[in-house]
């Protein structure tokens, strides 16, 4: 086994997340798929850091984690406010920015 296998796994997980973003309608599940893509990129970063023998990969994964947390907080707040006005969490329903 080689560390490249981890990167292949990360690529597969990323693709599944991307397909999920394309085929799902529920905004919250879309967000989960985006989280899956970010996690897959984190796995690739950590593996690259290990291959190169430096800790920079882990630091970058750390920053990705922070950005993902901020993104989730704001995104879920937007979903909440859309749900409050339109009574729906489906991305197909929200076709207007206001009302």
């Amino acid at each position, binding site marked *: *086994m*080689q*560390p*490249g*296998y*981890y990167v*292949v*796994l990360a*690529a*597969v*997980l*990323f*693709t*599944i997340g*991307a*397909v999920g973003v*394309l*085929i*799902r*309608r*529920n905004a*919250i*599940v879309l*967000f989960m*798929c985006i*989280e*899956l893509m970010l*996690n897959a990129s*984190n*796995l690739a970063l*950590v*593996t690259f*850091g*290990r291959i*190169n*023998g*430096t*800790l*920079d990969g*882990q*630091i970058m*994964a*750390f*920053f990705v*984690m*922070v950005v*993902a*947390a*901020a*993104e989730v*907080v*704001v995104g*879920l*707040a937007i979903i*909440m*406010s859309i*749900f*409050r006005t339109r009574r*729906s*969490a489906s991305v197909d329903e929200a076709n207007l920015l206001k009302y």
Partner: protein
Amino acid sequence: MTATLAVEAISTGEAWFFWILGPLAVLAAIGMVVARNAVHSALFLVLIMLCLGVFYVIQSGPFIGLAQIIVYTGAIMMLFLFVLMLVGRDAQDSLIEVLRGQRVAAILLGIGFAGLIATAFFRALRNVSATGLAAANSQGNVQGLAAIIFTRYIFAFEVTSALLITAATGAMILAHIERRKEQKTTQPDRMRARFLPGNYPGPKAGPGVYALSDSVATPARLPDGRQSERSVPPILPKRELTEIEAAPKGTASSFGGHGSTEGR
């Protein structure tokens, strides 16, 4: 790769972990995408994140692995579940395709993309062995991370704090409900509404308590024998009393016909 770099051999235990948890993560990811119920998706995502956390710990990153488990499965997924419970937990995804053929096209595209990128990585990294983090972690993983994060990445670290505080403020502004002053119901309004004709001002009766049933779904009986609608919460299915249950105890012929009256 220069000859001075050490080459870390991957142990059999790590291979076992990879071949067990890797397929598990992929299966959970597929389950997350195809699950109709959003709560199931969230639980599958928790499983994926735990698997990835174990991978980080195995790849000599104990700090990032624990941060993954604490921050992602602990905080972010709780936030997800919280919003799921607030916003449509029972909102099923519609099966109607807005763009015809989009689902099939997306799946084909995904398979193609995965095949391309995975084979590219596999061929590129097949013969690359890891240098390993033994040298970088010689002072300890957390110390090694801190030494880099507070020197080389100090600017990114500071910008992160600005990002976090902006996100927190933005979420507070977005989630805040502005209520106008004239929309607020005042206490005199509520009092007038309470004593308006058509509204019974007293407290509602409790549910019925009988020898055969003390369920909250059993309606209480009014003095004239009717069942009180107000004694049962509207979300509960009303439980009708059977003849035997409704009959005064000890007088009905269905009780064996003793005919003895009880001195209640």
